[in-house]
């Protein structure tokens, strides 16, 4: 962290306004070189930005300064809000990196510095990652809840309650001879209560469908019209459609959004017996996806549909006499398209966290579920020692979510998502 990084912090140009951010020990010096005296902290002032190399005017922009350690990254920060044309942004960034100690930031580097300087904790960083990746309003609001520390606050609240329960369990053990805490008949009901509160979040929809899109597998026998259906829903020609069976050999993923809900349509190989090695692999993948995806559009015979929840039976190629059961859809006439979309949206909504509802990712969910089962076990035990042990296990699970314990493991998971350089 000896150098100063710069990056475009706003969206893809061209836009009306762009925000270019610098963070590091030379941020102020670089700003001075471009704008003259740096304004007082947290005061946005209009300044002319000139290229120090040749004095050329780059732009007129708002400049804001944040002093370490009370800034987003914990370092000195200067933000430039300039016009959002590509050329302007490039000129500004080039001028900045011409200054000593300044360079282009790597992906995620600002957040990494915020983490390294203790400005955010790991659950907030995870939420922030999701926030940056959010493409729909629903995704944004959900990520906001986590990036804003809502999850951490919930966890802290549970941790405090766990500590109080533990204290009550422990006192009966370590102070056996004294009367303190003997006969705490309320302990187990209170443990059950906390477990119940936690289970609400455990059972609620996870973040992956929202963040990555609800996976909708489109499966059935060869030539049933799967690829055409995908293209119709996606309103583009992503999947290759021919009359020859076995055209789709692998999974083709097509992300779409309907009514703000993110889906990933997954076109699959037609299910049949095959001698072709490559096709066989595709068929296995297709079967796997048909089982795992959150929703399944089944284009084959109704009685051959996989036995699982979330199946929508489609009667495709009705104009060519396809399967009679299910929602009739014709890619040629467009019939049934709107209805299918409505059906997808309705089912999709149930699978997603509601706006502002906290949603956990797999790692967080699994740990919280561990904690919650420890509490369920504790509520049914008689031996106070075992109760105390299960409470400890629950506390440990909560701590691992926020990174108090097992720091390495948590950072591993985070780095895997954040594509941070070393």
């Amino acid at each position, binding site marked *: 962290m000896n150098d100063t990084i710069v990056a475009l912090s706003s969206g893809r140009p061209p836009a009306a306004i762009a925000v270019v951010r610098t963070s590091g020990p030379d941020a102020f010096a670089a700003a001075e070189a471009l704008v003259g005296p740096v304004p007082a902290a947290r005061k946005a002032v209009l300044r002319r930005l000139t290229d120090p190399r040749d004095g050329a005017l780059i732009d007129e922009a708002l400049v804001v300064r944040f002093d370490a*350690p009370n800034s987003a990254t914990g370092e000195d920060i200067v933000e430039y809000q300039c016009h959002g044309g590509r050329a302007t942004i490039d000129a500004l960034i080039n001028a900045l990196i011409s200054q000593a100690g300044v360079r282009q930031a790597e992906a995620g580097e600002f957040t990494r510095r915020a*983490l390294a300087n*203790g400005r955010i904790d790991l659950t907030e960083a995870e939420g922030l990652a999701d926030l940056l990746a959010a493409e729909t309003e629903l995704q944004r609001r959900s990520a906001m809840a986590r990036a804003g520390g809502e999850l951490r606050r919930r966890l802290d609240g549970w941790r405090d309650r766990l500590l109080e329960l533990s204290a009550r369990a422990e006192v009966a053990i*370590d102070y056996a001879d004294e*009367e303190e805490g003997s006969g705490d008949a309320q302990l187990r009901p209170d443990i059950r209560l906390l477990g119940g509160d936690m289970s609400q979040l455990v059972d609620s929809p996870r973040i992956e469908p929202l963040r990555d899109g609800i996976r909708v597998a489109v499966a059935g026998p060869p030539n049933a019209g799967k690829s055409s259906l995908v293209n119709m829903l996606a309103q583009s020609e992503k999947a290759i459609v021919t009359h020859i069976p076995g055209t789709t050999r692998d999974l083709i993923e097509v992300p779409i959004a309907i009514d703000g809900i993110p889906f990933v349509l997954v076109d699959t190989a037609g299910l049949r017996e095959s001698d072709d090695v490559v096709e066989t692999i595709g068929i296995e993948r297709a079967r796997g996806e048909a089982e795992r995806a959150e929703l399944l559009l089944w284009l084959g015979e109704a009685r051959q549909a996989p036995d699982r929840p979330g199946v929508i039976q489609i009667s495709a190629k009705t104009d060519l006499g396809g399967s009679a059961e299910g929602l009739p859809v014709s890619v040629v006439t467009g019939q049934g398209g709107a209805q299918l979309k409505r059906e997808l949206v309705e089912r999709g909504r149930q699978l997603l966290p509601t706006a502002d509802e906290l949603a956990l990712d797999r790692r967080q969910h699994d740990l919280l579920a561990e904690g919650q089962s420890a509490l369920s076990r504790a509520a049914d035990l008689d031996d106070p*020692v075992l109760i105390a*042990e299960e409470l400890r296990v629950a506390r440990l699970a909560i701590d691992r979510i926020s990174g*108090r314990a097992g720091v*390495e493991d948590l950072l591993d998971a985070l780095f895997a998502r954040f594509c941070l350089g070393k």
Partner: protein
Amino acid sequence: MFDVLVIGGGHAGCEAACAAARRGARVALLTFRTDDLGQMSCNPSIGGVGKGHLVREVDAMGGIMARAADRAAIHRRMLNASKGSAVRGPRVQADRALYRRAVAELVREAGVRLIEGEAIALRMHGSAVNGVELADGSTLDARAVVLATGTFLDATMFRGEERWSGGRQGGEASNALAGQIRELGLAQAKLKTGTPPRLDGKTIDWVRTQAQPSDRDAWTMALAANPKPQPQLSCAITRTNERSHDVIRAGLGRSPLFAGAIEGRGPRYCPSIEDKVHRFGDRDGHQIFLEPEGLDSRLVYPNGISTSLPTDVQLGLVRSISGLERCEIVQPGYAVEYEYADPRRLEPTLQHREIGCLLFAGQLNGTTGYEEAAAQGLVAGLNAAAISLGVAEARFDRGTSYIGVMVDDLTLQGASEPYRMLTARSEYRLYLRADNAVSRLGPMAIDLGALDDDQAGRVRDHLDAKTKATAALDERIAGAELGLDGPSRKPLSDWARRDDLIERIRLRLGNGPAANEALDDAIYAPYLTRLASELAARTRDRKLAIPPQFDFTQVPGLSSEMQERLNAASPADLDQAGRVAGVTPAALSALHFALVRQAA
């Protein structure tokens, strides 16, 4: 010239001296009074929940406390007897005089040389200690010195409006040495501990109290059999009441604690009766245990009313209690305020980090309790021998012993209030049982040469018996052999999961200590498996070492208080850093980044 010099003849000092001697060191024990060894300053009992675990561990390492306790025991009680073996705490009440005698015998048998005198200064050679200077002008040379001065380092006693210098009733304070220790920057702050009045048992109306007899089962603290068990006495239970509380409240203004005279913080765990009434004023009474002090003594120790109230108030308090209406106080209660040394400056061997050949053990490090002192004495003694003889160090891990938990807590967190052992302090409580100390520590004790031959033999016998019992539990047997119908054949340990079969299995295995221990292992097995994997998960963080001179002020994002705490604690790795009190997840990740960057 001695190999090891121990200063202080209390519980820490005696264990330290004997431990060093067992490893072959020439040991001298320096004390004000040689007839004062093993003096119990306060409660005449040894053991309890957590404390009892420590005593058994000290015994597994060849120490003397458990054996002395058995020889002097006049009342025994296994606490938490109905709650499962992980938290069963053996506790005995001892005849004070017999206990002192037993300790003196054991110290003599160990070949320790007793020297009566006062140390007024440590002698240094460079940055290492090499002996002491005595008040009479003579010097004692030693390769390693263990400081086990307890509450004597600049101690003041308080009762009501009185105050006087001294570490214990009838004992002098050690102020000259305290001055030097302060100059060396070793002394830290003050702590306070209290003691109740001693009562004349002949003036107690026992009929109005509730008797509590000694346990029928004559279990022992030590692995070794008890050659001459004492007759057992009952103790009695009574309570304070509203009138007692009124007396106390009326006298609060004259209590040094509330008049602000005592600087140190009192123990949170057994506060004075003034604290109890002040903080839990709405309770209608607090329980008191009346404990006889000896077979030939009329003194009774009322456990639960530690106090520093003036004598007349104490009398009013005592007389308000059921059964004590005509009771006479033989020795009024008092509080001691004493200086202690910050244990964060110590290595896990209890050796000082900067001053060579100097170790600290006992209440001096901010602990409270004889058992805590003895365990530290053991650690310091074993390591003083290591330094002076050039043999292996003794390191205790919090995953395998309460001794390890205590040493880790003290050296990492320090002591802002007197540290007392609780089983709650350990994450591995189901593994650290009072009944399996020998299995956990026996092999290490043998490797270190910490056991005399007899004890080594006993430990080996126990380990063998345990191995056999464990093998027996692995055997598959048919349900029929346990009196059940049906053809199932399962390992005995599986059958042990059923509550209704445990007793039968226990008898089948022979009901001896090793067999019972193996059975408990089987019963707790699923939990123990989980503990093992937790320990393994910790290993990753342990691998991220923090270099000894690491400067925490260089880690951005840490509050200055956090930085100070980490600097003082000097954690060895990320796992330890995570345990330092108050470290937030954000701070931990900032530290992690800093370490990784530095290593790169």
